Every structure is written in structure tokens, then in C-alpha cells.
């Protein structure tokens, strides 16, 4: 299996090249945000406020890590189920978000937004939180510290192993894979 190395911020040229089912190793800054943080993002936008980071060309990781033990930069940090963020994702994609990392299927509305605004959705292996923590070089809480595991963190990652689940052309790995092995 050929593995492509990519980095954040995600550039348009790279996004257009990514193909569904492809394994990639991602490096650079990414931002954690899950249920409660997304709800706060929406409240902030509704009230005319500023989000904790600029979405343009950035990548959000749907992840609420376990606490970092002494001497470690982060605890276990695998993905959470992405569909719970489906209600919020199209808005963020329209603001320039180019990549999402999580696990599980996305709604048609999210897939349509990815196609329209040229964004991608990556899968990290769910339940491999110990292994994924090895890709994290540093972590820093940048917003909503009071929300504990749901705070927004900036992570510096190196060679984070991911699969392209939805590319910018509307293809879906879950549909391909399941139909191939259905008996």
C-alpha cells in the first residue's frame, strides 16, 4: 500500500489529489473539538463572536483525549464518532475548514458540503488511542479549558496514520469496502 505524507494547513492542490481508501501520514498542527466545543462554536457565530482559531485550510480532529500522565504530552487520543458533529460541520466547512478526522459515516449534507467547498474526511482507527498518542509531539489547550476532555486543543502531530474516507469528489470508503465483502 502506497502511503502519502501530507501536512497542514491543507493546500488545495493536495486535497484534489487525495483519493478515497488511500493511507496518509499527516503532520503539522490540528485542532481537537467534539460535541460541546462544536455547540460553543455555533453559539459564538450566532452571537457574532470570533472562533478560537481561524478555520481556513485547517483540520479538526474529533477527539477528547484522556488526561496526560506526568512526562507525557497527551493521554490516549483516538477519534470519536463523527456523525454527532454532522449538524455543525457544513457551517465550519463553509468558513474554510478543509479536513476532519474521526470515525464513522458522515451525512449526505456533510458530504455535499465537502464536495462544494473541496474538503476531505479522514478516518483514524477507533480504539487505537494509545497508538495514536505516539504521533502527538505537543499539545496545548487553546479554548474552553473548563470543559475538560471537550476543551479545544492544538496538537502538533507527526506522521499520524489516517485513511481517506471521503475525498473531495464525493466518494465514500464505507460504501466501497462494505459492498466488496458483503456475502
Amino acid at each position, binding site marked *: *500500500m502506497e502511503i502519502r505524507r501530507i501536512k497542514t494547513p491543507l493546500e488545495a492542490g493536495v486535497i484534489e489529489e487525495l483519493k478515497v*481508501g488511500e493511507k496518509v501520514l499527516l503532520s503539522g498542527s490540528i485542532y481537537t473539538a467534539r*460535541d*460541546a466545543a462544536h*455547540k460553543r462554536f455555533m453559539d459564538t457565530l450566532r452571537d457574532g463572536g470570533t472562533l478560537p482559531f481561524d478555520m481556513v485550510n485547517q483540520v479538526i480532529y474529533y*477527539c*477528547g*483525549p*484522556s*488526561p*496526560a*500522565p506526568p512526562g*507525557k504530552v497527551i*493521554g*490516549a*487520543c*483516538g477519534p*470519536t*464518532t463523527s*456523525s454527532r458533529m454532522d449538524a455543525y460541520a457544513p457551517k465550519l466547512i463553509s468558513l474554510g475548514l478543509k479536513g476532519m478526522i474521526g*470515525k*464513522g*459515516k458522515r451525512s449526505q449534507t456533510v458530504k455535499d458540503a465537502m464536495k462544494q467547498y473541496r474538503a476531505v474526511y479522514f*478516518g483514524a*482507527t*477507533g*480504539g*487505537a*488511542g*494509545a*497508538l495514536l*498518542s*505516539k504521533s502527538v509531539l505537543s499539545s496545548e489547550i487553546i479554548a474552553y479549558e473548563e*470543559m*475538560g*476532555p*471537550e476543551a479545544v486543543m492544538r496538537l502538533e502531530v507527526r506522521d499520524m*496514520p489516517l*485513511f481517506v474516507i471521503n475525498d473531495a469528489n464525493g466518494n465514500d*470508503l*464505507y460504501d*466501497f*469496502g*462494505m*459492498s*466488496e*465483502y*458483503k*456475502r
Partner: protein
Amino acid sequence: MREVHVDRIMGALEELFVDANYNLSQNVLDILEGSIEKEESPVGKEVIRELIRNANVARDEHIPICQDTGLAVTFIEVGQDVHIVGGSLSDAVDEGVRRGYEKGYLRKSACHPFSRKNTGDNTPAILHAKIVPGDKVKITVLPKGGGSENYGEVRMLVPSQGKEGMKAFVLEMVTKGGPNPCPPIIVGVGIGGNLETSALLSKEALMEPLGKRNPDQALAALEVELLDAINKSGIGPQGYGGTVTALDVHVKMMPCHIASLPVAVNIQCHAHRIKEMII
């Protein structure tokens, strides 16, 4: 009457939740190893290898297996010849959970249903206590993640739907979950009783060792049949497509009302964390 101090129960809870979240049991590891050969998809095989590597990293470098260290599901069987002294049993359980999740650097995932405010210490535990014969206290912990728990359901089937209706319901739930509950999954099915006992049976079904068949031959055959049907769904490891969608299926059954056929499906992720201790 044998006396057991609540502090011993509290200490056991603290230890068990940490142990469960860092050390995947040999039973689960063996089943994962064995499933590599059964998986036909190369991507699926790679995912299972990643899960085994993850378990090794968790154990060797002391990082939780998964960041979702679960709600603190706790089963306690109290022998009827035991007198619990020194305080309240449920307070001791919550204190054990509080200490284990804090000292073990485990994620606190309990929150208010509507405001979503975190309770801050992963309490209250989900405690199921039962009085049994004997003078021992058996504690089993099953830290259970939200991603897999979200794909369970209790359904009151019409009796005429029978066994076929039950099988269709189980497959419907597995397909509905697809990649979300982190396959390869483990499926617990509770049949009969009433609304709440069917749900409890489905959870107890998840506590059976992987690979062990029901002592009732008809139920054992049903487990094999369901496992086979689930693995033909094509969902595969992580839902990326493949032939190992479930590692095992366990069924528990009891009589029900003449008007009812309750069936509960409880789905567990591959990170099947379970530990027990007898005091």
C-alpha cells in the same frame, strides 16, 4: 456472618478500573490474533494488527487503550452471608471510581443529560448489585465507551415475530451501527424477561469470555448463526470492509410474559475491557 469493610471494596474498584483500561485481557488478545487469519481484506488485517499493537503500547507504556475510558459499569455479587461494614456500599463504589479515574489518568465522561456539564469525577458509577449464596463479594468492572453503547436498543417485539424477528433485529442494529461502534464488535443479546431485564441480560451477555459458547445447545447454535450472519454483512474492521465484523456474539434468555417478546441488543467495541476480583 463474614464482615467486609467498604474500604476493601473501594480499593478493589480503584484498582480494577485502572487495570481494565490499561491491560487488555489475554482472552481478547487471543481472539484478535486469531481473527487476522479469518479476515480477507488486507486493510482489515492491517486494522486488526494496529489494534494488537495498540494494546501492547497501552500495556508497555502505560497509556489507556482508548481515550474513552467509559462510564464505570460495575457488577457486584454480594454473598448473603456477608455483612458490609464501615459505610454505604454505593458510596464506596463511587469513591473507588473517583480515585481510580483520577489517579489512573482516565477520562471522565459522565455528564448532565441536557446541560452536558461534566460531573468531573466519572461518578455516579452504573452499579448493579445482586445478592447471591455464599460469603464472598465478587466485583466485575466493564468500563463501557459511548460510541458502542449508542448503538444498543431494547425492542418489545410482537411474539409472532419469534426467533426470525429477533435475528432480523440484531442484524438491523449491527448494520445501523456500521463503522461507528468500532468494529470488530462484540454483540450481547438479551431475550425475554421484561423491558429492563432484557437490557440487563444483554449487558451480562457481554461479560461472557470470548469464544465460550452458551451451555444451552440451542442458544449456542443461535450464537454461531448470528455471528456468521453478522460477519457476512461486509462491514469489517473499522467498517472499511471485510469479513470480521464481530469477534463474538453471546445470547442470554429467560421466560417472558405471554403477551411479550422483549429483545435487547448491546454492542461492545473491540476494546473490550473487563476485569474481576473476588473478596
